[in-house]
């Protein structure tokens, strides 16, 4: 017996095994990173998702209603890994991100209590979150903390993608890191759902 997940892929509703879902999610994250520098990366990804959905549909029948990990591997072979899709137009953005020390300040949505500013600062300078918060509280009592917080909230972007979250901590972004990070995310989701 296995748990399945129901996903919306390119407008199709697809039932997929939990392990196959994790694999698919990882693949799409890798692609997202690969195309991060493209002008219309979101469009490319949604086109690829639509094609994946089409390929998955050909694998489903009345007797086989769930996509399993074998199907995911087959479809990945057909579409190609980011390395297979490699472009011949010079270095891609993922190379830029992989350079050591790519480090940016982001608001951290995963550890926030208000807007993630303190958590983001803590991640950037590798400090304890509570220490940053205490400093802001003291500043707030002095009358300037709230204003500074608001300005930082507006100025600092939120870490939305996995690549952002890794750059927030100052680790070079590479496939290995992303894999770890996505796995962490998946484990958290699983814990939350008490599976």
């Amino acid at each position, binding site marked *: 017996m296995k748990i399945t997940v129901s996903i919306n892929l390119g407008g*199709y509703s697809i039932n997929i095994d939990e392990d196959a879902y994790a694999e698919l999610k990882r693949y799409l994250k890798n692609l997202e990173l690969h195309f991060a520098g*493209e002008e219309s990366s979101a*469009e490319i990804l949604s*086109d690829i998702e639509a094609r994946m959905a089409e390929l998955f549909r050909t694998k489903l029948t009345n007797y086989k209603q769930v996509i399993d990990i074998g199907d995911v591997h087959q479809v990945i072979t057909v*579409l190609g890994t980011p390395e297979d899709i490699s*472009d*011949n137009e010079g270095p891609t953005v993922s190379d830029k991100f992989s350079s050591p020390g790519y480090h940016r300040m982001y608001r951290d949505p995963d550890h926030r209590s208000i807007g993630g500013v303190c958590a983001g600062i803590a991640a950037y300078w590798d400090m304890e979150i509570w220490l940053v918060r205490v400093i802001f509280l003291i500043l707030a009592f002095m009358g300037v903390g709230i204003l500074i917080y608001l300005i930082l909230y507006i100025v600092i972007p939120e870490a939305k993608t996995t690549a952002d979250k890794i750059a927030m901590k100052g680790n070079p972004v590479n496939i290995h890191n992303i894999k770890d990070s996505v796995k962490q995310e998946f484990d958290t989701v699983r814990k939350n759902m008490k599976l």
Partner: protein
Amino acid sequence: MDLENNKAQMRKGILEYCILSVLSRNSCYASDIIKELKEAEVIVVEGTLYPLLTRQKNAGLLSYRWEESLQGPPRKYYELTEEGRRYLADLDKSWMELVESVNHIRTR
């Protein structure tokens, strides 16, 4: 010398030309283009096509429209723009020149 790499480079060079040629006959959606490119063995992994299509569209060579489909969600149908047709005509010309040059050397 790496023969496979050499072949892959050749294929890459003509892939964009082939996509435009397929679309010059009639508008199609991505999976139709993939089918033709696969039959002609100019594409290895399907994922290569999508960034190229989007780039050609952004460059003004292609446009697309959404069309309802009986099999599922609406599909994106690509077609050549006027600029795309001119671009393709240029490529056609240089392709013929290339073939001639290569033949000239090979049959000497």
